[in-house]
C-alpha cells in the first residue's frame, strides 16, 4: 500500500511541477486574418508566408529592425570582381535537428530557390553559379554586375540539404499545382524559433530554439500563431486576453482597442501598394459579355481609373489609414518620386466619356476577383469599387474568396480583373518590374508587354552607374504609368494591436521579428 501511495504522490507532484512549468512558459499568442500558405521557404512569395518562415529560417543577410541590411548566416562578404561575390559563413550555426550548417546547405538552398517550382526564382534570376569554396565560404557569380544582390539574398532562406534529401524536398513544393509535400508542413531551419506543431489555418506553435547561434534578445518560450478570419472575432479575442498581438487590427476597431486601457495600437505606413489588374492581352475576356477584350484599349483602363473615388475609399473604408497611390511602389524604394505617385483625377463624367469613346457607351459585364482575408478591408474595397464602376455603367460581379484560392486561380490565368497587393522586400523598383511588368513575368497576370520596359529592366539588373540606373527606372515607371498597365489604389497603413505588456516592434514591411520581442 505504501509503495502505491508513494507512486501516486510522485505522479501528482510531477504533474503539478509540469503544469506550473507550462504556465511559466512565456508565450505570445499571435493572430492575423490568414495563415501562412506553406512552410516551404521557397514555394510562395507571399507576406504572411514569409512572416512565418522568417522566424524559423534565416538568410545569408537580413534586414534588422531599422530595415537596413546586416549579416545573418554570412559574417562578411566582398565582391572580388564586379560579377563575383564571396560570402564567409558563420561557423557556429546548427539546424534545429542539431546538424551543422555548412556552405553545402547554402549552395543547395540557393539552387533550390532557382528551380522552376520556386516562387523566389525572380529574386535571384541574375545568379549564374553558386559554389562552395570550402566548408564555410560560398562564391556567387552573377550574369552582370548586380547592385541589389544583397537585397535579393535577404529573402532567400537557407534550409538543411540533408533534411531535404531525406524528406523528398529537394525541389520546392509546386504550390500552384496544389502539391502537398513534407516541407510544406514541416520546417528545418537555423532560426531563433522552431516549429513544433503545424495545423494549417488553425494553429502553429513555434518553440524557442535553445541552441540558436545569436544573442538572445527576446524572452519568449513559445509563439502560437492562431489565424482568425473574422475581424470582430479577432478583436474580441484580443480584448478578452486570449490573444497577445494582432498584426492586422481592423481599422474600424482601433478606437475601441485604444480606449480599452489594457491594449495599445501602433500604426505604420506599410511597404505595400494595393492595386487592380486588368488583363490587356487576352482576345476575349473570360467573364465579359462583349466578345472582345475592352481592356486592350487604354481608354477603358483610364475610364476605370477615373471612376474610382479613392478619397472616399480612404475616408470610409480605410478610415483615413491609407495613402492614395499613383504607382505600385512607395516612399523609400529606389525609383519612387512624389511626382509619379500622383493619381489621375477622380472624374465620373470623363470616365463615361472615355468609355463611350472606346465603343462601350453602355458599359459591359465583368467579374472582379478579390481576396477576402489578405489585405486591410480587401473585400470592402472591392465592394466599393463595384459600386463606383456601376456608376459608369460597368456591371461588375464580385468574386471574393480566401487568399489561397484567389492566388492559385490568378496564377492559373483565370482572372480578367483582380485585386492584388505588392510589397517590395528589396526596396528597389527592379523587384516590382521583374515580377509585375516584365513580359511573361510570373505575377504579370495583366499580360503587359513592352520592349522598352524589358530593356530598362535589363539595365536595372546590370548597371552599376547609379545615375544611369535611376534614369532607366524613371523611364520605365513613366511608360507603365502612362499606359495604365495597372490601376493603383493606395499604399496600405498597417496597424498592430497588442496587450500593453507585449512589445513586438512594428516594421514597415509588416513582418514581426519575434527575436526582438518581449512579454512581461
Amino acid at each position, binding site marked *: 500500500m505504501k509503495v502505491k501511495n508513494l507512486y501516486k504522490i510522485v505522479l501528482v507532484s510531477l504533474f503539478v511541477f509540469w503544469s506550473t512549468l507550462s504556465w511559466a512558459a512565456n508565450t505570445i499568442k499571435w493572430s492575423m486574418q490568414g495563415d501562412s500558405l506553406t512552410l516551404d521557404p521557397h514555394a510562395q512569395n507571399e507576406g504572411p508566408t514569409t512572416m512565418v518562415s522568417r522566424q524559423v529560417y534565416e538568410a545569408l543577410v537580413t534586414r534588422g529592425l531599422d530595415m537596413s541590411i546586416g549579416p545573418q548566416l554570412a559574417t562578411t562578404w566582398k565582391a572580388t570582381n564586379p560579377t563575383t561575390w564571396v560570402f564567409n559563413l558563420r561557423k557556429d550555426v546548427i539546424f534545429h535537428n542539431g546538424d551543422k550548417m555548412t556552405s553545402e546547405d547554402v549552395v543547395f538552398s540557393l539552387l533550390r530557390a532557382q528551380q522552376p517550382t520556386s516562387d523566389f526564382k525572380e529574386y535571384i534570376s541574375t545568379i549564374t553559379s553558386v559554389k562552395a569554396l570550402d566548408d564555410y565560404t560560398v562564391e556567387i557569380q552573377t550574369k552582370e554586375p548586380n547592385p541589389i544582390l544583397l537585397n535579393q539574398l535577404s529573402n532567400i532562406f537557407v534550409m538543411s540539404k540533408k533534411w531535404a534529401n531525406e524528406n523528398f524536398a529537394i525541389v520546392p513544393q509546386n504550390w500552384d499545382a496544389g502539391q502537398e509535400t513534407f516541407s510544406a508542413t514541416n520546417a528545418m531551419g537555423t532560426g531563433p524559433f522552431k516549429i513544433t506543431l503545424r495545423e494549417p489555418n488553425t494553429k502553429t506553435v513555434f518553440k524557442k530554439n535553445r541552441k540558436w547561434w545569436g544573442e538572445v534578445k527576446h524572452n519568449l518560450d513559445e509563439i502560437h500563431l492562431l489565424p482568425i478570419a*473574422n*475581424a*470582430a472575432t479577432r*478583436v*474580441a479575442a484580443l*480584448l478578452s486576453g486570449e490573444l497577445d498581438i494582432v498584426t492586422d487590427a*481592423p481599422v*474600424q*476597431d482601433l*478606437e*475601441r482597442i485604444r480606449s480599452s486601457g489594457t491594449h495599445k495600437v501602433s500604426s505604420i505606413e506599410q511597404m505595400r501598394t494595393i492595386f487592380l489588374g486588368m488583363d490587356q492581352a487576352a482576345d476575349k475576356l473570360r467573364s465579359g459579355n462583349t466578345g472582345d477584350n475592352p481592356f486592350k484599349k487604354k481608354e477603358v483602363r483610364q475610364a476605370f481609373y477615373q471612376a474610382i*473615388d479613392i478619397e*472616399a*475609399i480612404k*475616408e*470610409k*473604408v480605410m478610415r483615413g489609414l491609407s495613402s492614395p497611390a499613383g504607382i505600385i511602389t512607395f516612399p523609400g524604394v529606389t525609383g519612387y518620386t512624389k511626382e509619379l505617385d500622383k493619381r489621375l483625377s477622380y472624374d465620373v463624367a470623363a470616365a463615361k466619356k472615355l468609355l463611350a469613346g472606346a465603343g462601350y457607351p453602355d458599359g459591359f459585364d465583368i467579374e472582379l476577383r478579390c481576396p477576402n482575408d489578405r489585405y486591410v478591408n480587401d473585400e*470592402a474595397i472591392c*465592394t*466599393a469599387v*463595384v*459600386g*463606383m*464602376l*456601376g*456608376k459608369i455603367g460597368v456591371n461588375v*460581379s*464580385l*468574386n*471574393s*474568396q480566401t487568399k489561397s484560392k484567389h492566388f492559385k486561380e490568378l496564377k492559373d490565368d483565370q482572372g480578367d480583373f483582380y485585386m492584388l497587393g505588392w510589397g517590395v522586400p528589396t526596396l528597389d523598383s527592379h523587384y516590382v518590374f521583374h515580377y509585375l511588368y516584365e513580359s511573361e513575368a510570373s505575377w504579370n497576370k495583366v499580360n503587359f508587354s513592352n520592349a522598352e520596359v524589358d530593356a530598362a529592366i535589363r539595365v536595372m539588373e546590370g548597371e552599376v552607374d547609379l545615375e544611369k540606373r535611376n534614369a532607366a527606372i524613371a523611364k520605365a515607371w513613366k511608360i507603365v504609368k502612362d499606359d495604365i498597365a495597372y490601376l493603383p489604389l493606395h499604399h496600405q497603413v498597417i496597424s498592430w494591436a497588442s496587450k500593453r505588456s507585449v512589445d513586438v516592434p512594428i516594421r514597415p514591411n509588416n513582418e514581426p521579428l519575434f527575436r526582438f520581442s518581449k512579454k512581461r
Partner: protein
Amino acid sequence: MDNQRLTLLSRIQDSDIYFSFTKSPTAIVSTIILIIIFFCSFFVELVAPFNPFDPSSLSLMDAFTPPSWSKDGVAKFILGTDGQGRDMFSTILYGSRISLIVGFSAILFSLILGVTLGLTSGYFGGKYEMIVMRLTDVQLTVPSILMALLVDGIARGIISKELHDEMAIYVLIFAIGISEWPQFARVSRAATLVERNKDYVSASAIIGVSNIFIMFKHILPNIMRPVLVIGTIGLALAIIAESTLSFLGVGVPPTTPSLGTLIRIGNDFLFSGEWWITFFPAIFLVILAFSINLLGDWMRDTLNPKLN
C-alpha cells in the same frame, strides 16, 4: 344542401377558427405584423425609398450614417446606412424578401416531400413504412443545421463556383427543405394511421376507388390540420435556418444579402460603435420569427380539440 351555397365569406365568418381568431389578441396582432412585413417585402420596389442593388444610387460617402434620430443622422436614411452607403431600411426589406422566399419554398418543399412519404407509408404500411420511418429516425438524429451545412458543402463540391452563386438560393431551399421533412412525415403518417381504418376509407375501397385517389382526395384533407400547424412553426424555423446559414457564410452570396448576411456584415462593426448595421436586421428577424411562432401557437391551440 342550402348550406353549401352560402358564400365563402359567410362560411369563414361562421367557422370556429374565425371565432377563435377574433377572440385572440396575439393572433390578431401577429397577423397584422405579418401582413405588413409580407406586403413590404413582396412589393419592396414600391415601399423602399432606395434600391440598394443599383450602384448608381449609392455613394460611398454616405457610408456609416447613423439612424435618423441620432446626432449625425440624416432624414433620408431612417435606419442609417451600412459600410457601402446602402440605406439600411431598404436593404432590410430587400433582404427579408429573400429570407421569406427561401423560408416559404423550403417549407413547401419539405411539406410536399414529408406528407407524400408519411401519407403513403401510413396507408400502405409494411416494409415500405418501416424503411421510411427508420429513415426519419436516422435523420432526426442529425441536427437540421448540420444537415443543411452538409448539403451545401456537397453542392459546392459538385457545382462550379460561378454556377453556385446563381444556384445558391436553390441549394439553400433544398438544404433547409431536406432537413425539415421528417417532422411532416411523422405527423402525417400518424394521422393517416388513424384515418385509414375509418369507414369512409373502407367504403371508398369497396366501390373500387384507386389507392392514389383515396389517399390524396379523401385522407389528405383530413390530416391537413396538424400538418398546417407544424408547417407554420416550421416556417419560422426555416427562416431562422436560412439566416443561420447565411450568417455562417454558406447561404446566399453577399451580392444579394438576406437578413442573415446583413447580420454577418454588421457583425464586423459591433466593436466600432456602428451598432445599427447589425441591430436592425437582427431585430427585424426576431419580430418576423416571433410573429410567425405566435400565429403557429394560436393555430395549434385552435385546431387541436384536445387542448380546448
